[in-house]
């Protein structure tokens, strides 16, 4: 198999992507420094990984203190960064690698990928939405400083023009279900109700399908493909059962203050008003742990240190973004393999 580094020697266009990648990351740093954020570094190797039911942390054998311990590569730096918020640092960001064992190495995924996370205290998810919009425009200005007036906020991704002008369209998940799936989500927040609605639409619903399985069947078939591809979309206020680390809405606790940002058909980021109620967080983590057990995944202890930190963590908003996918968007790359010198598929080829 011809490796990227071999093909790059002869291909100017492919090489340009990497110069742009470096510029993009530099402009991300520049943005956060100007906004008064502190860049932090947290471990990629921890004792207790995150509890997300569908992620597969990669286990490593760490020789430490004379014995071989189980350690895990982090799927996200979230827990550690929240501890730093609790330590009294109000605005922090990090660009680092994250690792997910269950991922295929394909167009959109690589088991090792680059993640950008930022958190701000005395803030919520709406502040993070504004950060996201401003960050993208800042990146655009840095890499394409001379776009003519009418084209100022336009990028082209896979033959489609995307207008990044602010404000970006915002849609609640309830509105999206109403508009695209003709469903009243309020009436469909239980597994039973969702199953009935999905079957009525002609979906196959099996005995082991959980709420989120059916939710996403409808979402991926009827909703996401119909977003206006000419603009980014901020999709917010998700059912609480799909947002375990996020604060519930005070005016409607069935929903949580979570948003996802999409552009060019790419899922770019996942953000929350962070949950700061330690007891509720314990309950949610316990539920996740039980689900992991149920679906046959490795289970971990709850990170008590994390729960202690949540108690001291001020009201905050935070987000995780896929840097590789951001780079894909700005360089018009179809696949993650094009924005990485050494994609996993080439390192670990069959």
């Amino acid at each position, binding site marked *: 198999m011809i490796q990227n580094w071999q093909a790059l020697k002869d291909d100017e266009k492919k090489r340009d992507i990497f110069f742009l990648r470096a510029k993009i990351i530099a402009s991300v740093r520049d943005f956060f420094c100007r906004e008064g954020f502190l860049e932090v570094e947290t471990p990629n190797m921890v004792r207790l990984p995150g509890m997300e039911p569908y992620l597969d942390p990669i286990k490593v054998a760490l020789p430490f203190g004379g014995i071989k311990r189980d350690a895990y590569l982090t799927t996200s730096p979230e827990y550690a960064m929240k501890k730093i918020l609790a330590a009294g640092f109000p605005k922090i960001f990090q660009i680092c690698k994250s690792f997910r064992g269950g991922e295929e190495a394909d167009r959109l995924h690589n088991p090792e990928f680059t993640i950008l996370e930022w958190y701000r205290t005395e803030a919520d998810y709406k502040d993070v939405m504004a950060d996201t919009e401003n960050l993208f425009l800042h990146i655009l200005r840095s890499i394409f400083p001379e776009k003519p007036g009418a084209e100022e906020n336009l990028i082209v991704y896979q033959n489609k023009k995307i207008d990044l002008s602010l404000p970006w369209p915002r849609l609640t998940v309830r509105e999206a279900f109403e508009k695209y799936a003709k469903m009243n989500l309020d009436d469909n927040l239980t597994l039973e109700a969702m199953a009935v609605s999905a079957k009525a639409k002609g979906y196959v619903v099996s005995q082991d399908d959980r709420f989120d399985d059916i939710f996403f*069947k409808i979402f991926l078939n009827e909703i996401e493909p119909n977003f206006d591809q000419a603009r980014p979309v901020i999709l917010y206020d998700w059912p609480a059962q799909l947002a375990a680390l996020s604060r519930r809405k005070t005016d409607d606790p069935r929903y949580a203050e979570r948003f996802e940002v999409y552009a060019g058909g790419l899922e770019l980021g*996942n953000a929350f008003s962070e949950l700061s109620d330690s007891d509720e967080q314990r309950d949610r983590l316990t539920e996740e742990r039980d689900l992991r057990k149920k679906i046959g995944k490795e289970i971990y202890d709850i990170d008590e240190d994390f729960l202690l930190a949540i108690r001291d963590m001020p009201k905050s908003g935070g987000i995780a973004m896929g840097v590789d996918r951001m780079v894909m968007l700005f360089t018009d790359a179809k696949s993650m393999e094009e924005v990485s010198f050494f994609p996993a598929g080439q390192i670990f080829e069959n």
Partner: protein
Amino acid sequence: MASTQDIKRGVVILWKNEPHLVVEFEHIMPGKGSAFVRTKLKNLKSGKVLENTFKVGEKVDVVDLEKRRVQYLYASGDKFAFMDNTSYEQFEVGTDVLAGFEKYLKESLEVILLFSEGSPITCEFPKKVSYKVTEAEPGVKGDTASGRVTKEVTAENGLKIRAPLFIKEGDTIIVNTETGEYAERA
């Protein structure tokens, strides 16, 4: 009853009771959720293409197609002629059946054609095919001035492939038809 693990490009499934060819296939993991598979399906009767996203593990009806081993004869415009080795029956198929593999065809190459109700609808192409190299610039190992590691060579059927510098005219190379890349020297 099969499941999503049995589907990939080129497989035919029953979707809403009609046979559909899986034209595209990709894994997605929405919002750190469980895994789904996004597919592009072509209705074999109407030719209409639609998208459907399945949850990984969902039960899917795979249609078993009749397989026949055929030998490539020649191209005529945008049609390609093959002959069934046992019945000597000849078929002409278009690029929709060959799905991009037509560029790897060479004289007498054997492929498997898959039939649904008597018509060829897709093919199983050999993963690796060997070709004689008919054109190659001389490339000297250690040609570090240009920094090149590969060069373009031409195969016996006109196909252009990037290959290592030591490949010469007259060599036989093996090409991976899934990636379109040089695999090894025969």
